[in-house]
């Protein structure tokens, strides 16, 4: 057997990532999707969606419905409960399951840039959230409202799914109890603090989804002064990029087991 060799530094090896995003990311997305879209999760979330739609039906043939009540209901059920919860359960599971069953190492210890892993997880989340949440919210809006409500609900859902998706993907990476902390954010921060003042409202994603709904379904009663569309878009983009960047930094510095 060779004895202990004398230490000589060998020629430097490429330090930059040697695998491009175009090859790595599709493969990772393909791997993350089945781990997140488990039967249990999909069943539970569609059940919640169905319950919402049933209640919508109940409210409708309770025959005291009018246009403003429709957006009221979409915002109350959809944007306050359904969209955030669905986003939390799915998005926190993307990096969360990888970390919990210790398979993250099979992505982490590879010559690829770390932001690709984060982006792949985020996109995988969206690929589940957009159809699931979008469909349920569209049907919900259709049962209680008219065309503009449906359009408003869909756009608001998109805004919510993107912003919440990024935040909860990050949350799933940094803590094992992502569900618990996510619920704290949704119920306490958005539910309670968000309502205190207009400024406090701006610190919660819900104000932007609700603004999007009220803008498109043109129902000013939802919010005192809803944000303008460009503001919604800029804020959502900023939040998304911010959370994904934070996740990348965290992933570079973390200890993987």
């Amino acid at each position, binding site marked *: 057997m060779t004895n202990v060799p004398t230490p000589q530094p060998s020629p430097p090896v490429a330090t930059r990532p040697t695998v491009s995003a175009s090859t790595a990311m599709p493969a990772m997305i393909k791997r993350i999707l089945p781990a997140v879209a488990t039967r249990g999760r999909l069943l539970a979330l569609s059940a919640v969606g169905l319950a919402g739609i049933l209640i919508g039906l*109940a*409210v409708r043939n*309770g025959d005291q419905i009018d246009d403003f009540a429709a957006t009221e209901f979409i915002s109350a059920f959809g944007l306050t409960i359904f969209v955030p919860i669905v986003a939390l359960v799915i998005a926190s599971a993307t990096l969360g399951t990888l970390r919990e069953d210790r398979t993250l190492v099979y992505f982490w210890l590879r010559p690829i840039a770390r932001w690709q892993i984060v982006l792949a997880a985020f996109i995988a989340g969206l690929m589940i959230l957009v159809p699931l949440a979008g469909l349920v919210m569209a049907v919900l809006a259709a049962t209680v409202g008219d065309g503009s409500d449906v359009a408003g609900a869909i756009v608001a859902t998109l805004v919510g799914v993107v912003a919440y998706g990024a935040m909860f993907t990050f949350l799933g990476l940094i803590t094992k109890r992502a569900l618990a902390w996510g619920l704290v954010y949704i119920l306490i921060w958005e539910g309670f603090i968000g309502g205190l003042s207009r400024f406090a409202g701006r610190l919660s994603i819900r104000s932007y989804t609700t603004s999007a709904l009220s803008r498109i379904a043109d129902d000013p009663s939802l919010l005192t002064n809803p944000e303008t569309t460009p503001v919604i878009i800029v804020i959502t983009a900023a939040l998304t990029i911010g959370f994904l960047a934070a996740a990348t930094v965290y992933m570079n510095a973390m200890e993987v087991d």
Partner: protein
Amino acid sequence: MTSEMQPNAGSAQIYDRGYRPYDGDRTGVSGAVKSVFRASIERALGLRRKFRFKIVPVLTIVIAYIPALIFMGLGVLFGSEVAGDVGAAEYADYFGLISIAVVLFTAFVGPELLCPDRQSGLFGMYLASPLNKWNYLAAKVGALTLLLSLVSLFPVLFLLIGYSFTGQGPDGFGEVAKTVGQIIAAGLVVSIFYTLIGMAISTLTKRQGFASAGIVMVLIASGVFAGILTEATNAPDWVRAFDLISLPTDIAGRIFDEQIVQFENVSTSMSVATLFGVMALCAAIIVGGYQRMEVTK
């Protein structure tokens, strides 16, 4: 290794501290069940464990007895005749008062009795002892029923005793006996009902946190849905009975000669039928869940 004791070796002795085989008689399956029963109660009340495990159980139990003390106080201050209209509760609606304490205790103690055993592999070791799944579950049902009766049956009994002293209680031996019988019956209904619900949900998962959250959500959601379906839509009245928080209190009310009933236009038979239906469903979940459980782990 064992050294014989030489009688004439002066006063000094060296004793063998080695292993002593046990040849006494053993307590068999009944002993094992008692031991699991006792261990479950100790664990739920946080005995033999760090202080923080004692907080929730003690707090919940105290909450269940405070209203009784207040009502007795009213009796003493305002005299037994007036106390009733000033707010001293009757036995039936005392159950309603403490239903929140019972729900919280179920959500905390139910998972505590079942989930850690499976999470920690202790359940597998129980099966390697004279116990089998069924007498294990019997011990757990017994323990949980006793624990829940601490916050349902005994507080009302305590109330009866208190009322007897302050003069608010029933008079005449027959009357007292009848009330005690009613309290025990109602208390058992509440304890057993929530025991089955708590254990059914705790069977579905190993993680105690999920089970506790599940119990609270199921109970609250049942109330919300029952309410919405009967008010918003024109669902039949008996659907009201599926509010699992008020159901046992409603039955308790009916046991006390229907003094206070939660669901007005729901017949007793329908309310009782719903009760037993839900209890049967829970029993099926428990038995089905443990039937399929892997034995060797």
